[in-house]
């Protein structure tokens, strides 16, 4: 059998959750982005005046910024944005308990296995359906410890001072065009606060899902980890397949205070028509540790570079990412570490897989500012190419203003080779299984960092998609 035929069928990009549930939105703003839409969103959310002003100002910033000329191909994006509904609200009221969630929405969640997952180890589930949090639970002992795990809207309502102190300070609206867009129309997302010294053993998890054709999703998450606290937040997300193009642009802001430790894990498996342009950044204070674990599958184009600003002495930042680019997909991902304070350390580990005409780009920045003495950073990016038509590029930007910095960069590109396949075949292992094994092994250093059920799901996804692929 020709090798290409086998390999073409690897099929990870074929979307697993290809189903749509009929739900009538209660309110839907007009198509496209305008001042009117922004005012409607803010009014619907009964926001304070300052937030409306913030949104309107962000809209101006968005309109004044040109489309980025770097990264992926955004040439057809403006036409897409004209056709998008920037705000859809499925329900008027926040649901308190699972029993109150409408059946149709429950069906969707059930197909995604959420109730089951919740029964097991999920402690607080924030499930975002379309643009709004419809279901949110938090274990009682956490509440007793002062932990806040709310929708972003409730964060603003119930904790206005804490919210306003941090909102937009980590990622200002001017940061980039899509951060400005999100600042204007954000809706849904999580607000998390872990008080001083509180350590959570069980991860906080949020599931969310885009389920409305031509709907943009602009989730906004703000997480504050106070001094000496420890927590892990997990966001997994899936979207059904549509024929028209769709758009997602999130902003994730995280503050990790002195001696605190935080990990943010995302596995995103978007449908093939999705533009996924996300800004996620953390401010890491003295002797604190921030870890990003980022998995990107699907989408038409993803541009996403989780970043750590190491602003306190001894701060540590770590970014681990997996990207899978299937046919026609472009994963433009990587990470940014910015060393501002002395004795700060960081590492970036990036693994990408490109199949068919898929393209993966590693784009990373390591910057050591003047005054960040004795900084240490290590970047490792590995690309695996499945076909001759697959593509990978590496853009590692390194800017160093201190001469005692230690910065390492390693990049590798490999192709699933005939020798590897022959070795496995000579042990009786059929080609599809051999391919799956090599891909699983390639991502193993990062997959093993995932909570068990996520690692299992990722492996199962790879296996499932390859089953019966050899005809």
């Amino acid at each position, binding site marked *: 059998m020709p*090798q290409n035929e086998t390999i073409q069928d690897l099929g990870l990009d074929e979307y697993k959750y290809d189903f749509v549930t009929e739900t009538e939105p209660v309110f839907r703003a007009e198509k496209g982005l305008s001042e009117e839409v922004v005012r409607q969103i803010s009014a619907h959310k009964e926001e304070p005046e300052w937030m409306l002003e913030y949104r309107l100002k962000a809209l101006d910033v968005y309109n004044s910024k040109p489309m980025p000329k770097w990264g992926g191909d955004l040439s057809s994006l403006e036409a897409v944005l004209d056709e998008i509904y920037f705000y859809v609200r499925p329900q008027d009221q926040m649901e308190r308990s699972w029993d109150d969630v409408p059946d149709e929405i429950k069906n969707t969640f059930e197909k995604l296995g959420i109730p089951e997952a919740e029964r097991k180890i999920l402690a607080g589930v924030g499930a975002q359906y379309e643009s709004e949090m419809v279901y949110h639970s938090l274990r009682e002992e956490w509440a007793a410890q002062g932990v806040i795990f709310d929708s972003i809207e409730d964060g603003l309502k119930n904790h206005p001072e804490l919210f306003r102190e941090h909102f937009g300070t980590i990622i200002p609206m001017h940061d980039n065009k899509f951060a400005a867009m999100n600042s204007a129309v954000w809706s849904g997302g999580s607000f998390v606060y872990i008080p001083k010294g509180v350590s959570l053993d069980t991860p906080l998890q949020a599931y969310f899902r885009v389920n409305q054709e031509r709907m943009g999703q602009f989730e906004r998450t703000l997480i504050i980890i106070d001094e000496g606290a420890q927590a892990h937040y997990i966001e997994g997300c899936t979207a059904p397949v549509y024929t028209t193009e769709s758009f997602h642009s999130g902003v994730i802001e995280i503050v990790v205070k002195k001696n605190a430790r935080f990990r943010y894990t995302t596995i995103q498996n978007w449908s093939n028509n999705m533009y996924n342009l996300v800004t996620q950044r953390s401010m890491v204070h003295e002797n604190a540790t921030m870890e990003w674990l980022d998995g990107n599958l699907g989408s038409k184009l993803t541009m996403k570079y989780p970043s750590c600003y190491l602003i306190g002495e001894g701060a540590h930042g770590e970014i681990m990412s997996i990207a899978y680019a299937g046919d026609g997909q472009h994963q433009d991902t990587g990470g940014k570490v910015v060393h501002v304070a002395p004795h700060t350390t960081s590492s970036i580990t990036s693994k990408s897989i490109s199949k068919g005409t898929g393209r993966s780009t590693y784009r990373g920045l390591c910057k050591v500012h003047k005054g960040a003495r004795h900084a240490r950073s290590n970047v490792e990016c590995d690309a695996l190419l499945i076909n001759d038509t697959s593509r990978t590029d590496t853009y590692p930007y390194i800017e160093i203003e201190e001469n005692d910095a230690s910065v390492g960069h390693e990049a590798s590109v490999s192709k699933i080779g*005939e*020798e*590897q396949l*022959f*070795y*496995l*075949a*000579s*042990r*009786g*292992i*059929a*080609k599809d*299984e051999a391919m799956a*094994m*090599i891909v*699983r*092994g*390639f*991502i*193993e*250093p990062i997959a093993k960092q995932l909570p068990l059920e996520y690692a299992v799901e990722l492996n199962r996804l790879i296996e499932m998609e390859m089953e019966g692929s050899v005809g």
Partner: protein
Amino acid sequence: MSDASILKIEGLEAKVADEDLPILTGVDLEIGKGEIHAIMGPNGSGKSTLAKVLAGHPGYEVTSGSVLFQGSNLLELEADERSQAGIFLAFQYPVEIPGVSIANFLRTAVQAHQADGEELDIFEFSDILTERMELLEMDVTFAERHVNDGFSGGEKKRNEILQMAMLKPKLAVMDETDSGLDIDALKVVASGVNTLTEEDPEMSILLITHYQRLLDHIEPDRVHVMVDGRIVRSGGPEVAHQLEAEGYRGWSEADSIADGV
């Protein structure tokens, strides 16, 4: 062919696929059940190509001749089917599979050898693996390491022997298993092979080697000399000693003086 024959090669010719470069130019060889044969020969004589062709490497194309394995046409099987039928190739350069543990790799391989896709009992597998590792005097933590990733030459070859011990082939083709090993590592590997042949006297082995020294530790029943893509001489263990003393000089022009198999 006799009932006791496991492998019978006749007039085998093969070339590099996509190239007009013949490497095997007419190999004749028959191996009986439980026999140990050695093929020796200079660099480029086609020894390793013969091993790969037997295992079904897609980089080579058979242009003429036949290979019967247990009386059936081996050449129509894919590489994985040959393994499942009972052929094992111990690689000269074992391939690294980063991120895949030896235990996981072996479980998948043993599963592939199960008759009719019967589900392998994971506990049973684990017991067998432990038992096999003890037999080969290997530390059980070895199975947690990633396949050949960062292994020394000796570790890679021991890993091949472990795989052989797990898959229990009917015919093991060992391609320059001795290359790159110091004398201590060579002894360990040879002792592993001897343990397996003692355990299963019906297992046949085809040793491909450059040097006599491996044959000091694994005693062959027959020794063949390969030059320019075919076997030019066959005999008992004394052939190896003779070669060691005289070298391969003169063989390439020599007429075939194979004394029959």
